[in-house]
């Protein structure tokens, strides 16, 4: 019995080796791409890979989901240390600086030049490119799935409560929340402790810094300043609204995150990524009227451009030279206007290039009811040219800093911390992370 089993295994192994050598597959040069998206969005990445593989005969990209952004970075690091890393890896916004200082990548511009592709780098929206570029403006990675935070609201509920216009200011939001409450809605606005919309995007569009040294772009000796900006007043407002039952905390731990809270019509207003536009359209009860608008600002402030979120594609170094040809071909492929349009259509992510956006606008994409409002994300991202506070956030250990801020928000909204004390706590712990990062990368220049 045992011998037979072994024989079977050997035979199976021989067959699989034989298959691997069939000429049709051997001709194509294989390289790997690891990404963090999962579920519906992850399958769309697979579609993109398939489109690339079908489009040409020279290269074959093998795409593997690592089920989550932080996991992708962790696994890529482990693989890099073991010298078994993929050629291309998707890294989320928060991991950008870790990659930049790693010395483990081939800069986007160099890769494309070396492989003979002419890329018009000015074609990328400034707000997107600057997040992934050096402070001198050289792009290190390829913007891929880009998004920004938006304000979603339930039009049916608004009508019932007698609210006519989309809220443009936080004063409008408060008024709307009061009317919704009066009309019997128990959760006028749902929010979570995710820092991206409430802290990062808020600060950008109100021209408030997150950290000194131009949000970290000008040096690793940066310090958080969120306990001294308009954010303090903003969170104080949130706290007051929460105490009055007008704003309601919705987290995974409580049982429902903000997006399901909106699609189940539990909450009538939320802040979330434009990337959720597709999901919301698919999951909210058919026939429900809802819309999306730019994040509100406080009256009397001048709106600035919002920050890009999502992830970019990095090409790691120390791979066989031939793989870079494939990687460059893939990156060139997904930057073509028709691919940009396809990707944006099926996901909700925004087109990252001006030509892609123009093409979509020209063929009436944004006039279709299902995609209505998605262009507001571009409007938000390009509202003003990027400035020191709106270029991006360049902080070491940023995922951990985000966690410290959301921990502090838990303390503020659930515990006994005052807003000021909570933000002071986040700043103190966040600065400790920044100092350690600075020491670890001492002497490494931030370009």
């Amino acid at each position, binding site marked *: 019995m045992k011998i037979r089993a072994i024989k079977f295994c050997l035979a199976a192994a021989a067959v699989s080796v034989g298959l691997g050598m069939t000429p049709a597959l051997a001709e194509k040069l294989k390289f790997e791409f690891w990404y963090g998206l999962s579920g519906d969005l992850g399958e769309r990445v697979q579609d993109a890979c398939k489109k690339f593989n079908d489009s040409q005969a020279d290269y074959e990209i093998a795409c593997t989901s690592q089920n989550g952004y*932080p996991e992708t*970075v*962790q696994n890529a*690091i482990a693989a*890099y*240390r073991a010298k078994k890393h993929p050629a291309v890896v998707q890294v989320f916004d928060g991991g950008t600086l*870790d990659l930049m*200082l*790693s*010395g*483990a990548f081939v800069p986007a511009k160099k890769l494309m030049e070396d492989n003979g592709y002419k890329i018009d780098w000015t074609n990328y929206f400034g707000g997107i490119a600057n997040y992934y570029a050096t402070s001198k403006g050289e792009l290190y990675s390829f913007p891929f799935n880009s998004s920004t935070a938006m304000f979603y609201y339930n039009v049916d509920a608004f009508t019932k409560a007698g609210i006519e216009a989309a809220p443009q200011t936080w004063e409008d939001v408060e008024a709307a929340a009061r009317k919704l409450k009066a009309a019997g809605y128990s959760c006028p606005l749902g929010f979570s402790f995710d820092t991206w919309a409430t802290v990062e995007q808020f600060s950008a569009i109100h021209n408030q810094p997150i950290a000194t040294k131009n949000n970290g772009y000008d040096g690793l000796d940066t310090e958080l300043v969120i306990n001294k900006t308009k954010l303090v007043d903003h969170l104080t407002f949130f706290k007051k609204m929460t105490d009055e039952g007008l704003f309601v905390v919705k*987290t*995974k*731990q*409580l*049982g*429902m995150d903000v997006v399901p809270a909106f699609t189940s019509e539990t909450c009538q207003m939320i802040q979330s990524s434009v990337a959720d536009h597709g999901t919301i359209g698919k999951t909210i009860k058919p026939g429900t009227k809802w819309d999306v608008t730019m994040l509100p600002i406080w009256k009397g402030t001048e709106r600035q451009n919002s920050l890009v979120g999502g992830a970019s594609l990095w090409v790691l170094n120390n791979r066989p030279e031939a793989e870079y040809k494939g990687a460059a071909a893939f990156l060139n492929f997904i930057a073509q206007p028709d691919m940009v349009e396809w990707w944006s259509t099926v996901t909700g992510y925004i087109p990252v290039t001006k030509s892609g956006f123009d093409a979509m606008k020209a063929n009436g994409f944004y006039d279709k009811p299902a995609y209505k409002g998605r262009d507001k994300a571009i409007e938000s991202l390009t509202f003003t040219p990027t400035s020191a506070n709106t270029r991006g956030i360049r902080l070491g*250990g940023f*995922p*951990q800093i985000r*966690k410290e801020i959301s*921990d*502090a928000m*838990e*303390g503020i909204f*659930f*515990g006994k*911390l005052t807003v000021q004390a909570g933000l002071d706590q986040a700043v103190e*712990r966040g600065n*400790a*992370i920044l100092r*350690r990062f600075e*020491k*670890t*990368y*001492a*002497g*490494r220049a931030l370009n």
Partner: protein
Amino acid sequence: MSGPSYFLVYDRNAGPVDLMNKRAVFKSWWLPMAFALPQLLLIFFFFYWPATSVLTWAFSLEPAFGGVGERLFVGWDNFRDVFADTEYWRSVSLSLFFAFSATALSMFIAFVLAICVDRQLKGSGLFRFFYIWPYAIAAPAVGLAFRFIFAPESGLIAVVNTWSPDLWNPAKFGSHAMILVIVCFAWKWIGYNFIFMTAGLQSIPRSLIEASAMDGSGPVRRAFDLQIPLLAPTLFFLLVLNLTESFVGPDTYGIVDLTTEGGPNKSTDVMVYRIVSEAFRGLNYSGAAAQSLVLIALIMLFTFIQFRYVERRVHYK
């Protein structure tokens, strides 16, 4: 034979038998080595070897993607940073609280269940079968299930919040969150403890129980005077195992990660969760390495205390 022996088995007919006294001696040195080799290799590759890199990281500042330049030696700096952090000490006390509570809860319930099954109460055969199941479920799966069941707004338990708002809210109150992870861990480990305790109870000669029952002692009395003392070696073994597992085990990490993520505001930020999230989410390899070494030292101290002071009260014969 004096001193503890782990080769003690009970025989229903012959009573305790010490296998240590029936030792067989290998004549050559290579044969036993060959037998031990697979295990030694495993330990070498999966413990000692990784441990050396933890050692180098703990005394240097390790960049995430590895040293591009020379590695920076910083002496005891990482440890100083760890010890100076008040959050770290909070995490230590949370871990201790978690370990003792989870161990006490799971061992107590497992013991009660084992006693009931041992008394051959109605349906005990069936229950013996079911009680073992939870241990076979992976901790993250347990965590996920508990998160859904105990979600304060949409879980099965949400009904208690309609009686009185915030009666149960682990997302909001640190104490509730701690209860949630303790219950979750205990639930999983009851099955494991139950197997050992049932086996131990079954090896206690039935005649002893019957004799004391005839002398008029009830089930509780018998448990305290007969079963617990006779079960002491098993209980001690389970105590060490449960404390160590709950203090540093992967189950603790999996459960915390899927239920509370260390929150709210770090109220369930136990040491093992803190280490993993600092190392892999925060990419602070050096700080996490220093914390792991401290944790290893603590575990050694922990186990030493148990063997030195608790085991004295355990009689193997």
